[in-house]
Each structure stands twice: as structure tokens, then as C-alpha cells.
């Protein structure tokens, strides 16, 4: 499967071989997610520690297409992981949690998560994750249990504006990031 930066064939079927790194300190969920993702024909790597996940991502720069990570982990705050991944690797990150309180979701959004899934996670929610990797923003199929942040919300445009302003100050347009959020 080609790296995230090159074009991915946009089709109705999810691409087999999408390389997913799933990070969760809960061994049961890690096992279930692995099975579910494999059923989606994705290539799955499991990891139970955020620090290790970061190392793996750094060691294999183009080795993964997308990261799915739990928010509450003992060694590193899941939000911090997402921030790092977003900054260093420019990979889409999906967050997971057992709680869906608005605070956490918004925190996820501001840390760069492209989606937020609530446990118990259904396989149908995982079937669509490839859309976050595709170049073109595609209509994103929402399921009842996922908070999708693609409603073209004010948060997105504000964040982009901030980044643009900052880039202008530095007179450096290369730091302008493509918007992470898919707009339907």
C-alpha cells in the first residue's frame, strides 16, 4: 500500500492492506480491534503503550497510513500522542474512549484527531476509516456512535486561520497544513 502522501484510489470499497497502528493499553480491546480491522482486510499492528507507538512511528516513517488510539493510557496521555503524531508525522489519528463527554471530544478535536470513536466500537465504524487517508475529502458516513468532526465547524476554520496567520508572520507557507477534517 502506498504511503499516505501519495494518492489512494478513491472507490466505494475500502482498500485492503491499509496499514493501521492501533494503540490501547486494554488488552481485550486491542485483541477485538485487531480482529475487526483484519476482517476489514486492513494490515494491523498492535501496540499497548503510547511511547512505544511513537517509537514505532518514528522508526518507520512511511510504514503506517493511520493511527487509532485510546485516549486514557497510563504512560502517556492519548491526547499528547495524537498531538505528537500530528506534528511529526502528519498521519490521521482516530481517538477512542469509553466516555464521550463533550470536553474530551473537543479536546480530541483541538489536538488534531480526525475522528472520535466511543467504546464499544462497532466494526462498521472501522470500515470507513480509510476515507481519512484518501487525498480528496470524501463524504464521510457517520454511524450513531461516532463523533465525527467534519461538519465544517467553526473550530476547523478558526484553527486554519490561526495557522495561516502564524505562517504569514513567519513568511513561510510550507507550514500550512492541509485541513485534517473532512467536510461533507
Amino acid at each position, binding site marked *: 500500500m502506498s504511503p499516505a502522501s501519495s494518492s489512494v484510489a478513491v472507490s466505494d470499497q475500502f482498500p485492503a492492506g491499509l496499514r493501521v497502528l492501533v494503540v490501547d*493499553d486494554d488488552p481485550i480491546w486491542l485483541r*477485538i480491534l485487531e480482529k475487526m480491522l483484519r476482517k476489514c482486510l486492513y494490515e494491523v499492528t498492535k501496540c499497548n503503550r503510547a511511547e512505544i507507538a511513537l517509537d514505532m512511528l518514528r522508526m518507520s516513517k512511511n510504514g503506517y497510513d493511520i493511527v487509532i488510539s485510546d485516549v486514557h493510557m497510563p504512560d502517556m496521555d492519548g491526547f499528547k500522542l495524537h498531538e505528537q503524531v500530528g506534528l511529526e508525522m502528519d498521519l490521521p489519528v482516530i481517538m477512542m474512549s469509553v466516555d464521550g463527554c463533550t470536553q474530551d471530544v473537543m479536546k480530541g478535536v483541538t489536538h488534531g484527531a480526525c475522528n472520535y470513536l466511543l467504546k464499544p466500537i462497532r466494526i462498521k465504524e472501522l470500515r470507513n476509516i480509510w476515507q481519512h487517508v484518501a487525498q480528496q475529502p470524501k463524504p464521510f458516513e457517520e454511524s450513531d456512535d461516532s463523533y465525527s468532526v467534519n461538519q465544517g465547524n467553526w473550530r476547523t476554520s478558526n484553527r486554519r486561520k490561526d495557522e495561516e496567520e502564524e505562517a504569514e508572520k513567519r513568511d513561510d507557507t510550507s507550514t500550512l497544513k492541509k485541513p485534517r477534517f473532512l467536510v461533507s
Partner: protein
Amino acid sequence: MNSNQLQHQVLYMRRSLFDQGYLDSEQLIQLEDLQDDANPNFVEEVVSLFYSDSARLIQNIEQTLSNRPVDFSRLDDILHQFKGSCSSIGAKKVKDACSQFREYCNAGNAEGCSRSFQLIKQEYETLRRRLESYFQMVKQAKAA
């Protein structure tokens, strides 16, 4: 019992687990859907993993509750993990007991936490027994 009767028993036990609120039906079905030739006993495997992993969480709660002063923040952390695990197998009653515990935790009520903890352990063991019987019946029905 013959094959049909065994099947009937399996369905009856399954229905009871749902109707009596022990298990979330959707989650069980999701797990069953993941069973295949490579992992024909995936559900049992996951349940087994749940019980072996959560044993340490129970121990941690026990330990933290016995320390003085009670570290409610730590307790809340552990319970949060426990809730997450419960959702993996759809352990409804256990999960609800955890929620109740967390409420007492947030209120700084150690006595309430202790009582909730007793309930958690109770539901946890009851579910274990019920699931063990259920899996046994499933195996018998398969063999028949």
C-alpha cells in the same frame, strides 16, 4: 439431552443473559461475528482475557481502597479502565456497578465506594458463572 434440546438450552441461556441485563446483546453478536476458522472460540477467548486481565484491576481497587487517605483520583482512574474492559464483552451489570462506584468516588464517599465495590465483585462473579455455564452448553450442543 438430544441435539435439539441442547440447542434450545443454549438459546434459552443466551436470552436470559440478555433479558436479565447481564450482557449487552449487540456486543455479544459483534464478538460472535468475529469468530471464524482461525478463531472458532473467539468469544470465549475474549471473555477469558477479560477475567484474567480485570483480576489485577480488582486487586488494585482493593489495595487503593484500603490505603488511608483514600486516593479517589486513582480509584476513578482504575474504574475508568474497568469500565472500558466491561464494554469489550458487554458486561452490563458490572459496568453499571462501576458507574455507581465512580459517583461515590466523585463525591469522596469512601463508604459508598466500598459498598459499590462489593456489588461490582458480586456481579463480576455471577457473570463469570453464568458465562462458564453458557460456554459449556454451547460446546455440548456443538458436539451433539
